[in-house]
């Protein structure tokens, strides 16, 4: 009976939405900044499926219709990028240089550390896109040979680091310019970093928002090149 009903497409969709809304409401009600509804929803649903014995395949019968809209939502990211165009034009040099260098540094750092810890290759490749927005990261991960599910988790974990520790670190190292703070947050921790940036100020929020799009595109272009390069160098 459970097996039969859980294969009903609506089941996967409802479970996904209900659990997310629950954590969202919980976080809003108690003002818990650390409670990332996406991360908690994923863990709660895994737990629920394990306890009820419902397989991932059954859940995915419905959940795939939710999954399907990641592509169109990624395309929709063009709109916020377009809206921030005046801001991009005004500070083009600072934005392009810092986001570009940051993206290269970030990818190399992940590859280097992964080599140091002798991570298995699919794991390493899953981590490469971890600083960009989930929509782009997932597709890119599959493209370069990573595992989408691990990428999603590494993206969320990276994002949650922003509200937890970014502000004191920025202050400690003398990064006090609002624009620089916003770019740093958006480039390294996508939308979750941006919500932190918005909290810090209007300029930070806007800069962080546009850095998401630019870092996303930069990572998509640079990740395959850099992973091949490092692969050739380290072997």
């Amino acid at each position, binding site marked *: 009976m459970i097996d039969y009903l859980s294969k009903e497409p609506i089941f996967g969709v409802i479970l996904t939405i209900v659990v997310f809304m629950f954590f969202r409401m919980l976080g809003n009600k108690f003002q818990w900044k650390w409670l990332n509804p996406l991360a908690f929803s994923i863990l709660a649903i895994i737990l629920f499926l394990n306890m009820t014995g419902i397989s991932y395949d059954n859940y995915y019968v419905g*959940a795939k219709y939710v999954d399907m809209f*990641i592509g169109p939502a990624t395309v929709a990211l063009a709109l916020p*990028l377009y809206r921030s165009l005046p801001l991009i034009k005004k*500070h083009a040099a600072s934005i392009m240089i810092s986001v570009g260098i940051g993206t290269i540094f970030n990818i190399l750092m992940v590859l280097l550390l992964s080599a140091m810890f002798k*991570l298995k290759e699919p794991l390493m490749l899953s981590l490469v896109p971890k600083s960009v927005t989930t929509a782009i990261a997932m597709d890119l991960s599959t493209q370069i040979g990573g595992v989408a*599910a691990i990428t999603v*988790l590494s993206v969320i974990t990276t994002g949650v680091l922003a509200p937890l*520790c970014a502000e004191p670190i920025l202050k400690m*190292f003398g990064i006090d*310019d609002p624009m620089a703070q916003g770019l740093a947050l958006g480039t390294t921790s996508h939308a979750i970093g941006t919500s932190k940036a918005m909290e810090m100020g209007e300029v930070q929020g806007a800069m962080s928002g546009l850095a998401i799009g630019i870092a996303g595109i930069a990572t998509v272009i640079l990740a395959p090149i850099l992973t091949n390069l490092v692969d050739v160098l380290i072997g």
Partner: protein
Amino acid sequence: MKILQQLLIILGFTFVGKVLQVALHLPIPGSVIGMVLLFVGLTRGWVKESQIALVSDYLLEILSVLFIPAGVGLMMYFDLVKNSFVSLVIILLVSFVTSLLVVGRTAQFVKKRQGGTAKASKEEPAID
């Protein structure tokens, strides 16, 4: 009809992006190609903001929910992650903190140099 039209435009760009990726063997995800195309379309005026804003803003609002199914897929990869859990956490933490500093410092550096050479305009980064 308005919503259907807007949805159709977004889905159209998504599909064209995928078609281009496959046809040209590009190493870039189709959805990202679609995003760039839509961005170009908006700046060139081929697509007006009002023609997609309703559906786009809706999709962006529910964005987080869309990633849950993929994330739950982690339950299939527990073994792969379990053995390297500590290394994973260290890699994520170290690369996050260092990259944060690199971007912030670079942005500040470039901005100061520009401010110094270009007639020291003490311009506040106002949003306009």
